[in-house]
């Protein structure tokens, strides 16, 4: 316990990241206890009320209670990020391990697809996919759409790590002692890359949330779900900025900022664990 505390003092980014994300989780959990999530639907409150005792975050033009919207919407946005992030890193790691360990033709194909896929601007491909889908998306479909590109970057970076790792002595020893390929991947390679995979996962979640908010602000999101990005879409749609309804965009902006900053500092902290060489230069 004391060792953990001492480590935290050496790694303030990690602490800051965890603290910011904990604040978000706390907000959701406490909010769920005290706020009726049904008020996130239109027509459940008087329209365009600035923050007051009854509506601490104010209400929007369609009569949503913005506090309820935030309590209901923040987990939805996080869910998109986590689903897409997990699929992305899971798929990416699988492809990377298979490609980098076995090399040969499969590796060439995997690397080629990842390299070409990464040069194409992701948001535009996501827009093309989202536009092609009939009707409006649900939150989970949204996550799948975002995940369809989320594996490219993890594949490339994890592959590079595996390539350097597989030349190490202990991998050679395992090979010489007759360990099977999958055995080496799961027992020798994977455990050594866990901190790195964790940092990659946090990065992917952050990128997925950013992509989903981007799609939503452009009007391609789940129209009837109160996610943070959809709230910003309505803000833009109703020109809340020019009309001076500052409370409408303030709450989602602050929450999105906190999420991104939290995830960013968490990555920096995890990077420090995964890559101890950084310790000297920091």
């Amino acid at each position, binding site marked *: 316990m004391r060792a953990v505390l001492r480590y935290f003092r050496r790694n303030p980014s990690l602490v800051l990241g965890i603290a910011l994300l904990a604040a978000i989780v706390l907000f959701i959990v406490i909010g769920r206890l005290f706020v009726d999530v049904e008020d996130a639907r239109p027509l459940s409150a008087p329209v365009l009320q600035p923050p007051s005792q009854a509506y601490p975050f104010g209400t929007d033009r369609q009569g949503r209670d913005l506090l309820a919207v935030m309590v209901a919407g923040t987990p939805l946005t996080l869910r998109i990020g986590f689903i897409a992030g997990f699929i992305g890193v899971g798929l990416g790691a699988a492809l990377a391990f298979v490609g980098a360990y076995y090399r040969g033709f499969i590796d060439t194909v995997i690397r080629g697809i990842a390299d070409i896929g990464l040069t194409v*601007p992701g948001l535009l491909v996501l*827009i093309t996919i989202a536009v*092609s889908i009939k009707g409006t998306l649900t939150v989970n479909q949204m996550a799948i759409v975002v995940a369809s590109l989320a594996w490219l970057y993890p594949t490339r970076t994890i592959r590079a790590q595996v390539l350097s790792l597989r030349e190490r002595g202990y991998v050679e020893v395992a090979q010489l002692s007759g360990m099977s390929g999958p055995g080496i991947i799961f027992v020798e390679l994977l455990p050594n890359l866990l901190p790195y995979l964790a940092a990659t996962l946090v990065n992917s979640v952050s990128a997925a949330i950013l992509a989903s908010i981007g799609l939503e602000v452009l009007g*391609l999101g789940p129209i009837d779900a109160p996610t943070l990005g959809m709230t910003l879409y309505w803000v833009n749609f109703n020109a809340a900025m020019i009309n001076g309804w500052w409370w409408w965009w303030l709450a989602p*902006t602050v929450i999105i900022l906190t999420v991104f900053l939290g995830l960013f500092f968490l990555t920096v902290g995890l990077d420090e664990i995964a890559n101890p060489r950084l310790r000297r230069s920091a």
Partner: protein
Amino acid sequence: MQLAYIVRRFGVFLLIVWLAATLNFFLPRLSGQDPVRAKLLQQASLGGYAQAGIEEMTREYERRFGLDKPLWRQYVTYLGDMTRLDFNYSIANYPRTVRDLIADALPWTIGLLGVTTLLSFAIGSVLGALLAWPRAPRWMMWLMPPLWALHAIPFFLLGLILTYLFAFQIPLLPIFGGYSAGAVPGFSWHFLADMVSHALLPALSIVLVATGGWALGMRGMMVTTMGEDYVVFAEAKGLKPSTIFMRYCLRNAILPQVTALALALGQILSGAVLVEVIFGYPGIGTLLFQAIRENDHFVIQGIVFIVVVALGLTTFVLDIVYPWLDPRISYRRA
């Protein structure tokens, strides 16, 4: 040898463009939507009369647009159109072609993003180099946390906050658009000043965020470079610190940054879609936003295609130029 290298790189470029065109062609068809039928049904219900004869009309229109031909014939025609940059007419602004709309929007986006990308690259690289340099003034260390924090924020969120502060609370700068309503676009000083004042807030929100990224990258490279033997040797020779900084460290550390700059320049067209939307800036991003709102598929496809071509072209040029920038890389290694 050089020619083979260039030809191979050009092949990759063509491959990327072909993939983009193919994606554009097949994705909408996979979704099973029937745009002709949908449009006819929509107009029929608007007119309020019975939907008799819709099937015949659909068939007739499909014959006219060539949609009754086999898929591969349509695909070949489509690829031909794409190579001529013929993206068809805009559905929402009918008499105008997609190519016209894009040509109108391009200069705005290239102007805004070109200037901000170069600016944040220059500021960020110098800042990053100084941050890693032990002789830099102490107060510079205090710049790190805010740079980091800004770097983690999406462009458009910072844009929202800046708009509120500098256009709404303190009405210093215009809030919306690329130029004042009623101003006639042209090359007068008055119009230029108007244009710059409109571009200032979007530009600021991009530069503030992007500078942090450049500074972080540069700092990392500087730290690595300063650990190299030749830097130690230069110090041992007693060279002036400024010489070591400029010619030994900066010169070597900036190479990966230049690569990243070229890639960033390739992303120019799609880099700030949301910033343009938030500010109503009349560039590619806003055009795309409107096209999505109006279900203007041809405009969306045209923009996607143009962006991919621009990107492939930058990568191609970079591949050709890079061995000249960094002599350690030869043309032979692909």
